[in-house]
């Protein structure tokens, strides 16, 4: 597989791969490093990838496998809470409280997004998390641009309301 073809196939998947990694690892630096590692491995084995019928599914499976390897490795504690895995990288931040707070914030905002009504959740995930434009979302979902704008507006307000309510 030539360089241009490799990039045409896999570069558009980088953001999705990152989203999957942050969902599992709850750590931005780890998620970015994992995406870069997976791209390196994909490049090293690119000649074997021409037979892959679904590059998106394959790349996401690669990310999941590598994230699981990281979680299972020594020094990366894991605690299963309600079926979700939240990671605490014990060797990362010099202030463990900062890292724990960051991990919990990532978990909190992911739960908030998941608690939204289906349409709002899908639109805010596609737009604010995966980086798709409103036109791309319209093409994928069949929703009108006005409808998308409304759903995104409601979703953002709902998440903001969570942060404005007293603790």
């Amino acid at each position, binding site marked *: 597989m030539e360089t241009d073809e490799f990039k045409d196939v896999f570069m558009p998947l980088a953001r999705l791969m990152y989203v999957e990694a942050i969902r599992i690892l709850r750590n931005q630096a780890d998620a970015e490093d994992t995406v870069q590692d997976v791209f390196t491995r994909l*490049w*090293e084995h690119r000649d074997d990838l021409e037979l892959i019928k679904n590059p998106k599914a394959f790349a996401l499976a690669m990310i999941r496998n590598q994230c699981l390897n990281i979680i299972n490795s020594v020094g990366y504690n894991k605690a299963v809470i309600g079926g979700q895995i939240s990671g605490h990288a014990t060797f990362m931040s010099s202030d463990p409280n900062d890292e724990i707070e960051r991990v919990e914030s990532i978990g909190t905002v992911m739960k908030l997004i998941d608690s939204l009504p289906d349409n709002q959740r899908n639109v805010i995930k596609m737009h604010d998390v995966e980086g798709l434009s409103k036109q791309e979302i319209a093409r994928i979902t069949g929703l009108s641009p006005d409808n998308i704008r409304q759903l995104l507006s409601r979703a953002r307000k709902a998440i903001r309301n969570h942060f404005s309510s007293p603790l």
Partner: protein
Amino acid sequence: MDTTQIYKLRQLLERFYAADTAPDEEKSLRELLSDPDLPEEFLPDRNMMEAMSMLLPSENLEERISMRIDSFAQDEPVKSKESVKFRWPILLRWSAAVAAAVVFAVISIIRISTPIPAQAEMSPEEVYEQTAMAFMIFAEALDKGRAAIEIADSTTINASVKAMDAIFPIQQP
């Protein structure tokens, strides 16, 4: 924060919650919300933007990946034409299609070249029987080709699974 900045912040927030902001406007909004002198009324907006931004990669992640791929490509020796690997499953597919076509062609030629005994015109029933037999022979040839293609497909799937295991085997804890 001065009055102009606060005015701009309010405008951007209104547009943001109406889902009308462009990416560069959202970047300006994040910069304004990160001001250390941000009035307290905007703290929930800042907390929300900070939380959402934790789900995002750094701005230049894709660029870094692309540059890394370019440097890998530059460091590699140029492949010679002789070293291109055969793609056996793809070869099998084409072989199966060619084999099916050849079988059909051979059978057709044999049937055409077989002398038909001189006889009076064939009855409609005889014509139907001959046509049905021709279709049956064609279907058998297709089936054999399809079986070969299924073998090639199965080989392709096995190759994908093997590639996944080779690149990233799941390590047991």
